[in-house]
């Protein structure tokens, strides 16, 4: 055991002795980030109070916030923060004094002695270079999930992940608390502590969640902005919501278990939300893809009980009318990326490239050139649709999926995750496979 590790272990043991052997068994993790607030969550094995000590310097955690009561699930909201500012924090049962500088090595170690940090989102509106990590259907808990994760960690290096998106089916097979523990909390502890995560509900998450009463594991684990805390219009539910980050407006829909009808509440909310935004970019994410010929088939009415049809025929036209730029989905355990498309709402045999493709190029700055969209928000100016549902596994290698939907420029039966970099009016997208290869990339430029 190396010396720093030994020291951390000692510190943990010493801390534990004081606090009746309480151990942090989950987190901390960051939720509902806004320019001026952050929700910090963690779980302990014993009941205790919930306190977050925080400050602008590692050794000066001079502020603290606490939640009422005691418990094992700790949810503390920090408020009055400065935008785009790095904060150090530590969680525990009581405010903690700043640690000895010698404990610096403890930053990435779990436990009560750890001091972590996060950076608050910038003020809403102005552009700021933003990195987003996108994981669809990650939660297999297996070597593939780990490989996909490690490839991204290597790719991003010291570049911070400003936020990350989970596209549903986050924890197989049933989205139970134990599934989440292994598939999310023990899989991404480092990212959870420093980067806010936003999620949408997948069918496997839905097995242990109850949408009617908005209860169950998924809703217990995530604290999502039902009151428009992070921008957008108030949805009143964690099943679908929106948030802003710099000049990007993210819209999360529930394709699994909310009413998907044209007159339903989710649609009414979405219309108002999209009409209200003044952000440069609109990125929508939900679990069930509008198009796929991967491990699911969007042409089959019976596949996923028509959810893919609903999202394509009912929601897609409204998203396009509102000027959506990028649609991210999972569910199909492949990578499929469209041309810059618009107006295709039927089955694949109704796809007509001359009618539905706005720009039939690969969208690569180093190839046929980035996709161009007008700066002014124009309805039906085209969007890229990406199915990136292979962060936990890809489709069968022996019985490979057809991957022949004509809406896609590229379809890959490969595990991997996606990365979005937004810098002002340019959006760069990359798909990294589990071997660390950059297997697809494109850019959208607004001018």
């Amino acid at each position: 055991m190396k010396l720093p590790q030994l020291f951390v272990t000692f510190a943990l043991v010493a801390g534990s002795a004081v606090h009746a052997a309480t151990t942090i068994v989950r987190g901390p993790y960051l939720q509902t980030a806004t320019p001026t607030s952050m929700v910090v969550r963690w779980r302990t094995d014993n009941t205790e109070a919930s306190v977050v000590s925080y400050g602008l310097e590692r050794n000066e955690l001079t502020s603290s916030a606490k939640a009422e009561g005691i418990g094992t699930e700790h949810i503390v909201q920090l408020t009055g923060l400065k935008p785009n500012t790095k904060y150090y924090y530590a969680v525990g049962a009581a405010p903690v004094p700043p640690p000895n500088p010698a404990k610096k090595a403890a930053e990435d170690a779990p436990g009560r002695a750890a001091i972590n940090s996060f950076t608050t989102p910038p003020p809403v509106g102005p552009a700021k270079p933003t990195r987003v990590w996108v994981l669809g259907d990650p939660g297999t808990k297996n070597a593939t999930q780990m490989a996909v994760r490690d490839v991204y960690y290597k790719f991003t290096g010291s570049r911070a992940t400003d936020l990350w998106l989970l596209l549903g089916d986050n924890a197989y097979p049933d989205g139970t608390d134990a599934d989440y523990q292994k598939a999310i909390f023990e899989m991404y502890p480092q990212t959870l502590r420093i980067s806010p995560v936003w999620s949408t509900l997948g069918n496997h998450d839905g097995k242990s969640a109850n949408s009617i009463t908005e209860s169950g594991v998924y809703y217990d684990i995530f604290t999502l902005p039902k009151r428009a805390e992070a921008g957008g219009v108030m949805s009143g539910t964690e099943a679908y919501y929106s948030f802003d980050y710099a000049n990007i407006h993210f819209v999360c829909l529930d394709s699994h278990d909310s009413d998907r009808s044209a007159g339903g509440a989710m649609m009414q909310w979405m219309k108002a939300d999209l009409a209200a935004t003044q952000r440069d970019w609109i990125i929508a994410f939900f679990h069930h893809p509008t198009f796929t010929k991967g491990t699911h088939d969007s042409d089959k009415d019976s596949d996923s009980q028509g959810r893919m049809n609903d999202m394509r025929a009912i929601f897609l036209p409204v998203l396009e009318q509102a000027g959506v730029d990028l649609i991210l989905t999972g569910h199909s355990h492949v990578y499929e990326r469209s041309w810059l498309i618009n107006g295709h709402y039927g089955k694949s045999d109704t796809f007509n490239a001359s009618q539905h493709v706005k720009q039939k190029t690969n969208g690569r700055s180093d190839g046929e050139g980035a996709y161009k969209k007008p700066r002014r928000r124009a309805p039906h100016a085209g969007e890229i649709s990406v199915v990136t549902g292979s962060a936990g596994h890809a489709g069968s290698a022996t019985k490979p999926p057809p991957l022949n939907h004509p809406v896609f420029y590229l379809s890959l039966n490969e595990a991997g995750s996606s990365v979005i970099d937004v810098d002002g009016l340019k959006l760069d997208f990359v798909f990294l496979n589990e071997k660390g290869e950059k297997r697809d990339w494109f850019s959208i430029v607004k001018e």
Partner: protein
Amino acid sequence: MPRRGFGLAGTLCNVPLVRSSILRPVSGCFDFAHLTPRCTALACALMCVTVARAHPEIENGLAELNPRIEATPNDAAQYLDRGELYARHADWIQAEANYLRAAELSPRLPGLDRARGALALRIGNPREAGGHFARALALDPRDAETFILRNRARVALGDRAGALADLQHALRLIESPRPELFLERAALIAAARDAVRSLDDGIARIGPVHTLQLRAFQLEESAGLIDAALARLSVIAAQSERKEIWLKRRGDVLMHAGRIAEARAAYGAALAAINSLPAWLRESPDSATLATELARLSGRAS
């Protein structure tokens, strides 16, 4: 295994009910001496559960559940799990067959009657569903989900008062209900003012949620409660970074009420809101079209 009772029963989707001629209420289905055609189908279904299914998620679920059922064939909970797996994939016959087996083994199994009721409701048998829900609530009178489902069964049977009572009960049991439940309750209330009051109760509980405000506005407008509708629009507009749509709506309401000068002011305010947008939004086709219309309406108003 997942928490029992979710899946089909938990859905919020208002999809049309499927009607099946083979699935009618029966009792004593596993009295094989008196098999009805439906029972035959169900018994056959249960015996054929190991037959490979087309859907990979069912296959995966069955791969886990079938060996467990083989190992403990008298564990009712496993049949409930398998029934719910089938129900999630709209295989109603297999779902019902498994529920019936579970009911034979353990009639009071928690979650079973709710699941059976949800299935009956889903396939268009609200009366049968009501019976299951009543039994479920007798076992667990704090089961909000079952109250919500029974409310829907009662709506299907035309019992709006009973439905409303169930929904009220559910809303009392849930700490932070989804807006859809308040909308569902408002739809059961005939008098517009009372429906609005019910929505305001929802707003008091979960905040000025857009969909609740919008429905209240629509009710107020259709009931001729103009000032209330206008106040409502102000709240909606306050939540929106772009106010022009709601200001135009305000103008429309005022115009319809014959309050021409106020309508003109509202249209003017909408136009001003557009003009205050950054150029890239102001010059968008939607904004330009709206601005043209507002100019026309202002002219007509004046």
